[in-house]
């Protein structure tokens, strides 16, 4: 993809000499595929995400893919949350696209309004996406999201799921996995961490709205993620993409392990990669070599209390393994065919 004649971006000193994915300042031969000038880099350097942030990575790939799919005719609406805060500390902005933040719980509704405005203005080519974290999507924004789904508004909603309220300091959300330690589910007492038999599966709930497209994706499978965004943008009506984005700060994982953690979530069966159209599963990404859930859990301090031995912990680990096994069964993830991950 790298082009000998590619123009170099204006030098920003802090970027010079780094080998960050997408860096256009390094030698042309050393540039990665993401540094191609065909990529819009809608979310540019200079934002203030933590080291190893899965959400920043996921957002950049998702938005760039959406930009390519729409010939750069894209408007993004952002819920309150990490992505909003780290990209737009006034007077700076990392967004190279028309972007608006309104509130925590209304991104889906605001995006529906933008899509309606584009319809009345006859700007069919301009497409709308909404994006938010798991709290803004699954909890406080759930009403607006369900409304946007059932009206089949022409919006792609992207949820960057890092499994807790990270922006406010790692509090539990309805996406927090069972047993996980957060600031409001501390690893204390007889039942440390998040309680069992809690939480919800938003992709399945989205599917229950019979909307044109629902998919899950992960920062560990970026080509798959891009393909799903491209597919989503080829369709009209309400579409939902749920992206698993590890948060080193909140999960207690090493920043350099973000991709590894995300990959183990897929390989253990805890985060299945699926696609569905009009409520029917159309594709899943098979797991070549399933791994036990402990491989995934042990990289994260939020589960450290589970791994200290004892009968009770063994029962809990078995329960988490059952969740993974059920996912594998439900979506037939372990099967004989050409694997994609």
């Amino acid at each position, binding site marked *: 993809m790298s082009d000998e004649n590619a123009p170099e971006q204006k030098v920003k000193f802090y970027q010079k000499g780094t080998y960050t994915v997408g860096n256009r300042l390094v030698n042309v031969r050393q540039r990665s595929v993401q540094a191609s000038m065909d990529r819009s880099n809608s979310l540019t350097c200079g934002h203030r995400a933590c080291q190893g942030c899965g959400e920043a990575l996921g957002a950049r790939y998702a938005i760039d893919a959406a930009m390519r799919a729409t010939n750069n005719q894209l408007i993004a609406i952002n819920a309150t949350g990490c992505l909003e805060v780290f990209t*737009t500390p006034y007077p700076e902005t990392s967004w*190279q696209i*028309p972007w*608006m933040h*309104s509130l925590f*719980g209304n991104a889906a509704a605001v995006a529906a309004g933008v899509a309606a*405005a584009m319809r009345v203005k006859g700007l069919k080519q301009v497409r709308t996406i909404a994006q938010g974290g798991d709290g803004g999507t699954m909890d406080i924004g759930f009403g*607006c999201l369900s409304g946007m789904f059932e009206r089949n508004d022409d919006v792609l909603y992207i949820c960057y799921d890092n499994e807790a309220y990270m922006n406010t300091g790692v509090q539990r959300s309805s996406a927090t996995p069972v047993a996980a330690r957060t600031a409001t589910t501390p690893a204390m007492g007889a039942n440390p961490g998040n309680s069992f038999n809690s939480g919800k599966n938003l992709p399945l709930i989205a599917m229950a709205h019979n909307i044109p497209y629902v998919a899950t994706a992960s920062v560990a499978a970026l080509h798959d993620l891009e393909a799903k965004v491209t597919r989503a943008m080829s369709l009209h009506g309400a579409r939902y993409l749920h992206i698993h984005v590890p948060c080193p700060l909140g999960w207690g994982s090493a920043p350099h392990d973000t991709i590894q953690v995300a990959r183990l979530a897929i390989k253990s069966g805890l985060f299945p990669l699926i696609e569905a159209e009009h409520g029917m599963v159309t594709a899943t990404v098979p797991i070549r070599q399933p791994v036990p859930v402990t491989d995934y859990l042990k990289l994260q301090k939020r589960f450290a209390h589970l791994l200290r031995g004892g009968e009770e912990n063994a029962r809990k680990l078995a329960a988490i393994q059952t969740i993974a096994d059920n996912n594998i069964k439900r979506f037939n993830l372990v099967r004989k065919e050409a694997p994609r991950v």
Partner: protein
Amino acid sequence: MLKQMEGSRAVAEAVGLCRPEVICAYPISPQTHIVEGLSELVKEGRIDNCEFINVESEFAALSVAIGSSAAGARSYTATASQGLLYMAEAVYNASGLGLPIVMTIGNRALGAPINIWNDHSDAMSMRDSGWIQLFAESNQEAVDLHIQAFRLAEEISCPVMVNMDGFILTHAYERIDMPRQEQVDAFLPPFEPIQMLDPARPVSIGAMVGPEVYAEVRYLAHYKHLQALERIPVIAEEFQARFGRASGGLIRPYRTEGAELIVLALGSVNGAIKDVVDQMRADGHKVGSITVCSFRPFPLDALRQLLQGVRRIVVVEKNLSLGIGGILANNVRMSLRGLEQPVFTVIAGLGGRPITMHGLQECFTKALAGTLEELHFLDLDWEIIRRELHHARSERRSGPVAENMLKLRLQGRSDV
């Protein structure tokens, strides 16, 4: 064109004449007939090129309008009471973002106890939200204010709430002079946003602002209201020139020449007040009234000019700031700062309690005689309040207050 029609239907048609591009609707009494009317107008194709969106809550209704307005479409919604509270976060957000959305409020009381009837508690809850708040005295004025509201909102990039009394106006059938489309088109140019979401010119809207300039941003919002104080009378004058009738403006004095007593109020109760003023003038009392049309921005200077030196000032208002009194009266006092003129408050019509001319006249007569309390509750049944207070004092678990009061009221009736 003169028509006999319901207030809500009239407002729906007036909004339609303003060529809205996105209308968001969520039902709540007494606003429902407005959005029902609009849904018909859109379905019939009488409003051209308009998206009518049925949403799942008032919070979503205003949020959709925020999105469509930011994308450059003229946007409208309507609500009342609990609905306005439910959308509160978006109400502040819309004004903070400077989006010229127009919203009708069919004014209604707030629960608990749940009550669907008229008062101004809902609008007052949003008095500091940064929205322009206009109050219609009649259905004709409600029609006219909507046309002026879009013009004002889009001129200064600030959302406008048009308040009309629930049921008293929304459900009343009156003669309406409905403007013609070409008249409205000449008065209200197409919406040209000062900033919008546009792939050709990408901007980030709604960024985080810290202590370094937040106060300056808020001052600029305040400045918009100061601008509105100047623009509202100008727009009302132009409206009168084009449409041939006076509507809107900041305030409307009625028979205030040489008045010893001036009564102020918001909304439809001004009709009854003017009738009482006429009666008392006929009896030789020097009484006048002022209709406050613009509550936000509040016309401090205009009121001060008219009220300066007036011996008695009475504010009749359909809200109660608990423990303090009337909110409008407090604002009127602000207009008289430095002057020693007492302002009397008459709390009336809460939760739809009828305000009778008899009751008003009694208050005004007392005010002239100097015997009106500073805070007076019109037609309050002190007997059931006394009995309930006694009951609550004597029994810790005395039961739900609202239900007890109803019981006592019914018992009182059966005693008669």
